[in-house]
């Protein structure tokens, strides 16, 4: 085994095409999943899971968008009668819950699930069956929420579900219990994905990919995964534990008459809720660096500053939550600390934007669709960031809190800072996932409609909010004068819908018969572009060796690789945490039905808890065989880690 950092590439050693083809065929046999519907259900391939995760999360974007279109149509005119208050309340709650819990976080973790192993040069993700379990749990949450909405049991107290309105007295029935359990499912799925990404990033990198060579996409996912680990348990405690308990078994967490506190909910929720928006935002920043680098054809300026900004943002994000509570009777001194923190967090984000602008300046930008979306991000997000700094001020927030000004701000930052980079990422990585290019012209139409639609829809809301229009209102009187701007906003919403239709048309057309993409159509620098499009189940025929931050740009002709991993079983390489020296081999699990089974049992347990404690016992009891079978599968196949002696025959290949 080599003892130095840099793997040595013996001169003149190369793998012939026949060697590579033979290796590929052997790997294909070992790594390909079962076929058909059963194969799809039992798949543990992180790319297969990642793809369906992305598709499901995008379907949630569409569902949430349809709900938004309904809301905007209702608010188009004063005293409109399209939706009554009860339906409207369910719709805006489901819109928020869908977008925040079922679309925004899952799609970011889905992109991580698909791409992080490829970008770090691994054959697979760290815990493939847990990954599948996370997806199926999320899917149970999706189905549960929408079946409930259609059955008139959709939650109706807002995505933030403030008590006492969502408490046992004022929210009769099980609508809020549905919300609490949807949060449970999505939070379990997010935690599973986060743990997977952390372990993959730390322990399964390509040899030579020390932490200071980690791609910025992976840094963002890593930082966000830690944020998920610290933030999600707060909302789980709040909703799954405290709120569900208050409602089902009559505890008094939030009952002031018995010593509880209604403000406690707000603290627990927003302690999660503020990091949540950075959990959505930071991965999007991770998309931007590779796109800017590729299309400016320049290495990004300020790698270290970008990494440190990500980490700093993540830390600060946990110290901002009270800015959602400035209108509550919290003492002035306490509130002012959060003002300072909320303004401070603009600095690392600003630095990231300055670094990208510097990169563009030093490069020769090529305005393909992904870069257009990055420019759209800057245009939109900076606006939202500035209104965010305004809202950080307690005095001003006391006018703007809970009005349409905040609706404008949050959509500018989430759409500008999250969805625009996401669309850019779709256009950029679609060729890698599907092997086909998206149409460039349709992409440009998509981009312009989206940019215009977002600004027309949300800009007037700033004015509406300061003119007195509060949030979460199903209608308003015509004497308020809010009608005209609401109409403009609704038109913008329809333009956004049109742009998404254009995107869907583009995706469907391209998926079926788009231009074939090679393995690196953009001539980009990450390791994911070193394999075919779409990647084979085993990702790389030979595990690549990394010698710089931009592997595909810095190697002369051929990418150095490492040979020696077995191709008669599913074997992955585990490396050390900081310097990525090969450490040992590990056998990956075969496809398995137990993740799906356990997700269904979890579903039964948590959904059952709404109705009866016996169902909880049934669900837990049913999980037991699943857990045993899962462990049995591991015991049977795993023959213990082999300290690496072999895989050090380093060679060159294409």
């Amino acid at each position: 085994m080599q003892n130095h950092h840099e793997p040595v590439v013996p001169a003149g050693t190369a793998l012939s095409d026949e060697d590579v083809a033979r290796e590929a065929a052997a790997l294909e046999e070992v790594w390909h999943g079962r076929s058909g519907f059963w194969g799809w259900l039992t798949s543990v391939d992180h790319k297969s899971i990642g793809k369906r995760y992305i598709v499901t999360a995008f379907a949630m974007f569409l569902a949430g968008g349809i709900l938004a279109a309904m809301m905007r149509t209702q608010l188009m005119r004063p005293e409109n009668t399209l939706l009554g208050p009860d339906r409207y309340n369910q719709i805006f709650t489901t819109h928020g819950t869908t977008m925040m819990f079922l679309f925004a976080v899952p799609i970011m973790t889905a992109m991580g699930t698909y791409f992080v192993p490829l970008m770090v040069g691994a054959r697979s993700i760290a815990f493939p069956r847990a990954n599948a379990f996370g997806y199926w749990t999320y899917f149970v949450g999706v189905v549960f929420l929408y079946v409930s909405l259609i059955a008139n049991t959709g939650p109706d107290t807002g995505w933030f579900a403030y008590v006492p309105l969502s408490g046992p007295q004022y929210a009769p029935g099980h609508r809020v219990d549905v919300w609490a359990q949807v949060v449970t499912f999505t939070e379990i799925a997010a935690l599973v994905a986060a743990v997977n990404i952390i372990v993959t990033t730390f322990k399964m990198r390509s040899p030579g990919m020390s932490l200071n060579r980690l791609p910025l996409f992976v840094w963002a996912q890593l930082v966000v995964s830690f944020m998920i680990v610290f933030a999600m348990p707060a909302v789980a405690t709040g909703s799954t534990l405290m709120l569900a308990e208050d409602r089902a078994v009559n505890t008094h967490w939030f009952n002031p008459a018995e010593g509880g506190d209604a403000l406690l909910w707000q603290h627990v929720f927003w302690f999660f809720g503020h990091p949540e928006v950075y959990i959505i935002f930071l991965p999007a920043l991770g998309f931007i660096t590779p796109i800017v680098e590729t299309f400016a054809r320049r290495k990004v300026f300020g790698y270290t500053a970008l990494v440190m900004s990500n980490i700093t943002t993540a830390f600060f994000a946990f110290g901002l939550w009270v800015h959602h509570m400035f209108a509550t009777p919290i003492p002035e001194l306490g509130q002012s600390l959060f003002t300072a923190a909320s303004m401070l967090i603009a600095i690392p984000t600003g630095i990231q934007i300055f670094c990208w602008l510097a990169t563009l300046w030093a490069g020769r930008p090529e305005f393909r669709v992904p870069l257009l979306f990055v420019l759209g991000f800057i245009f939109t997000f900076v606006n939202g960031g500035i209104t965010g700094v305004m809202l950080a001020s307690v005095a001003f927030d006391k006018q703007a809190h809970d009005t349409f000004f905040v609706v404008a701000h949050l959509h500018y930052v989430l759409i500008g800072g999250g969805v625009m980079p996401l669309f850019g990422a779709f256009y950029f990585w679609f060729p890698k996932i599907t092997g086909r290019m998206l149409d460039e012209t349709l992409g440009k139409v998509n981009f312009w409609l989206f940019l215009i639609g977002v600004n027309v829809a949300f800009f007037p809301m700033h004015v509406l909010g300061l003119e007195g229009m509060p949030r979460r209102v199903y209608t308003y009187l015509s004497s308020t004068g809010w009608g005209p701007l609401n109409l403009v906003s609704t038109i913008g919403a329809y333009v956004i819908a049109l742009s998404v239709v254009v995107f869907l048309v583009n995706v469907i057309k391209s998926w079926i018969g788009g231009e074939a993409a090679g393995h690196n159509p953009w001539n980009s620098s990450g390791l994911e572009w070193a394999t075919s499009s779409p990647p084979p189940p085993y990702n790389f025929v030979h595990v690549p060796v990394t010698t710089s931050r931009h592997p595909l740009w810095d190697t002369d002709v051929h990418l150095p690789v490492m040979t020696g991993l077995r191709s008669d079983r599913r074997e992955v390489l585990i490396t050390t945490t900081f310097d990525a020296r090969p450490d040992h081999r590990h056998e990956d699990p075969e496809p398995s039905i137990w993740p799906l089974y356990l997700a269904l049992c979890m579903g039964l347990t948590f959904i059952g808890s709404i109705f009866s404690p016996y169902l909880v016992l049934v669900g837990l009891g049913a999980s037991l065989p699943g857990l045993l079978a899962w462990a049995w599968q591991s015991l049977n196949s795993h023959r213990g880690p082999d300290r690496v002696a072999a895989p050090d025959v380093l060679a060159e290949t294409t």
Partner: protein
Amino acid sequence: MPTTYRHRGAISLALFTAASLAACEREARRLNQQPPPGPPVTFVSQSPLQPGPTVVTDTAEGEFDDNAYNTSEGQTLYSQMNCSGCHSNGGGNMGPALMDDEWLYGSKPNQIFASIAEGRANGMPSWKYRLTNKQIWQLVAYVRSLSGLTPKGARPARSDHMMVSSPPNQTPNAKPRNSGLPGASQRP
């Protein structure tokens, strides 16, 4: 289109159809209902037998038993109309207990409606000119939930006041029994 997507599409469609057909009665909130035309109906029939021509009666019998929203409105009315002044929070004091299985004048919805609307001996006031029929039916559903006669899913949970009794959703399902003479309530 790959088989898997078709399968998933079919499953989703089936689920959604089932859900919309089984739209949940427990959660229904029919808010903007027009009041019935004509003079108010205060007569709720206690038996299918009627002498003479058929008299129109309020047919909302039992309608709110499995509806959580209206049972909760009944809980609100119970506190606003000061029912606890005589009945406490269901344990009874000057008035009989409402959360036990003993019913002086019957536990069926139309019987409780009559008790509330007409009033009863020994101090139960008559509410029929004070509350609308819908409000009385909401109270009926709440009173029945206090003694465990309505489906558990629709019963209210604890209120945001001091906890003075077991909330209705934790009351075991009870089998009502008619205790007969008014004098029975005088026993300690």
